């Protein structure tokens, strides 16, 4: 994906590489995502956040589940895993526990993370395991044709709620914060700088971090609910987005046409899973304890040290 359309022609402008490109599998482009879809926007933010942190891309692993956002892993030029539906988090848990030197990012959609994988989401937050979870929430099941999701606001028309949804939707920041997440944030695909910054923060801190990015599905959700195209949605995100850092988490419900509360809601220090495990076993077993990360630990500590300014 070179910026130059015709390499033979004399360059009228300096040729600029898209800085995100180094993190993309260009040989897999174009992506499957529709025009106006917000997932690509979040990927752009993610790539830029990676650059900003200066993190060694060799040590960044991305894990997705199934769905449109589940395809993100496949487009990232990183060690990448496209797992089963809902199970990106437990897969990532295994990766992280086997090698804490890895920065493990879970990148998936609302259906995958919060519905079929909801239990894993809760338990990963409870354990405060050091995963960076990006949940692109388009309020529907897109890949399967736009059915109602656990996140679909009331009255929204979907393929399986043709008369409008009547189930109350999940409030994801509230859920993961209650379960114990140490970082919780929500933005929309209109808020690209904030999204990027939130990703940057997640990449450089320890503990279970969760970012929800509200994102349009123009092909299904927006169309069925007469919300216009991608651009119209950006306008609505601009108008409806209400930045309230540290907002009362119970007030974050998504509604049709209502305010979208965005911001950084939770940032707290809790011992993460690995710290708790190592400290506890070492205290109990003393010199009998064989640290599984004897060699790996020094390496990862070094990296975190370098990054702590992020």
């Amino acid at each position: 994906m070179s910026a130059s359309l015709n390499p033979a022609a004399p360059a009228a402008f300096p040729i600029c590489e898209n800085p995100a490109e180094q993190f993309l599998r260009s040989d897999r482009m174009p992506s499957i995502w529709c025009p106006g879809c917000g997932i690509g926007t979040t990927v752009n933010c993610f790539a830029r956040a990676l650059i900003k942190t200066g993190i060694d891309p060799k040590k960044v692993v991305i894990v997705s589940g199934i769905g449109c956002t589940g395809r993100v892993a496949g487009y990232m030029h990183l060690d990448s895993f496209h797992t089963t539906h809902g199970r990106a988090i437990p897969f990532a848990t295994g990766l992280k526990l086997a090698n804490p030197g890895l920065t493990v990012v879970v990148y998936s959609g609302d259906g995958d993370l919060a519905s079929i994988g909801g239990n894993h989401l809760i338990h990963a937050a409870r354990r405060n395991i050091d995963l960076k979870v990006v949940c692109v929430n388009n309020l529907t099941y897109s890949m399967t044709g736009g059915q109602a999701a656990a996140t679909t606001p009331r009255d929204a028309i979907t393929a399986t709620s043709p008369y409008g949804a009547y189930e109350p939707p999940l409030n994801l920041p509230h859920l993961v914060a209650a379960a114990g997440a140490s970082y919780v944030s929500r933005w929309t695909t209109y808020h690209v700088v904030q999204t990027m910054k939130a990703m940057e923060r997640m990449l450089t801190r320890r503990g279970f971090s969760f970012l929800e990015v509200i994102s349009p599905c123009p092909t299904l959700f927006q169309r069925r609910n007469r919300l216009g195209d991608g651009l119209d949605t950006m306008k609505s995100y601009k108008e409806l987005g209400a930045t309230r850092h540290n907002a009362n988490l119970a007030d974050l419900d998504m509604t049709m046409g209502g305010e979208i509360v965005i911001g950084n809601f939770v940032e707290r220090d809790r011992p993460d899973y690995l710290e708790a495990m190592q400290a506890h076993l070492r205290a109990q077993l003393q010199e009998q304890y064989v640290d599984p990360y004897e060699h790996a630990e020094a390496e990862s500590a070094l990296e975190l040290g370098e990054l702590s300014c992020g």
Partner: protein
Amino acid sequence: MQADPRAVLTGVHFLNGDQACCEGALAAGARFAAGYPITPSTEIVERFSKRIPLVGGVFIQMEDELAASIAIQGAAWAGKKVFTVTSGPGFSLMMEHIGFAAMTETPCVFVNVQRGGPSTGLPTLPAQGDMMQARFGSHGDYPCIALSPDSPQECFRLMIRAMNLAEEFRTPVFLMMDEVVGHMTERVEIPAAESIEVTPRRLTEKAPEDYLPYETETSKIGGSLTPEMAIAGEGYKFHVTGLTHDERGYPSMTPETQHKLIHRLFAKIDTAKDRIIELEEDHTEEAEVVVISYGITMRVAERAIQMARTEGIATGKLRLITVWPLAEERIRELAGRVKAFVVPELNMGQVVLEVERVTGGRTRVIRVPHAGGTVHKPEQILEAIRRGAMTVQGAGA
């Protein structure tokens, strides 16, 4: 490669099958396990959770079997040797990730200490009702390696073998125990670490730019059909997906890619069948009736065989230590010679279906089904042997 002496409990012990299985895993180099409690398998990970901090590794109790069966695969891709354990209801939940492991060629071992089913069934009592589930339980077509131990000593040995086979063929391997073997306590001799052969991970030595994650020596005669593995964090930037994928690991939704991939997955096991299949035979050459079974049922059957021999019936024993892939060729050879096969199982007839298929009507196959909850009475099996011996040869099934 030899076992790490720090993890090998060399000596003579009085262990149950579950405990012996755990020691086998440790000896084989398992340094990560995830589990979810379920009778009668839990003692395996209870012991692992106690032993592993002293050896250098991690155990995590996950929120359910879906999580346990995929967490181990994440750890495998970060370089660990891994396993999980369960029983019937948990095995059902793990099915999706058995398919994922087969498709992504992730080395891992699933231990199933079988109990009575279906559903919650008999949590503390034995059965062998998951044999076909092990073979065919996950959706789609994939090959299967399943081993069945008949004693705690063999739980130790076969767990090592299962871990080794998983590494060699990059495939999920099943250790199909049962409640009796899991909870039965016997003498278990654990040899010195240097006498335990351990298969190392098939890691690639190629540079990242030359590496294709699913490239194999398909075109080379005698070449390996198992790809070399890279592990996360080393700069290979590889992609792994449960979707049908090409040699680059990229999704490719074409019948051609599917054909090539699935045929290779089968061929990698099929072409190595002779090495994978392990049998125990006794007096099969001169037998008129051969009892074919596996696990605890073969031990019970052996008593019936002894009784039959004292009655003058030439009875042989064919124990399937490797149940899957089935020892088709050996069964076919014997089918031409013996009057009957007697196949007792702690299920309503599962592996016997395959024996019947392989036999193709050339010899009589007598099922000795059992709903589970306890083992057969030797007399039930003896009765079947007697019927087998009375078969008029050539009359077929």
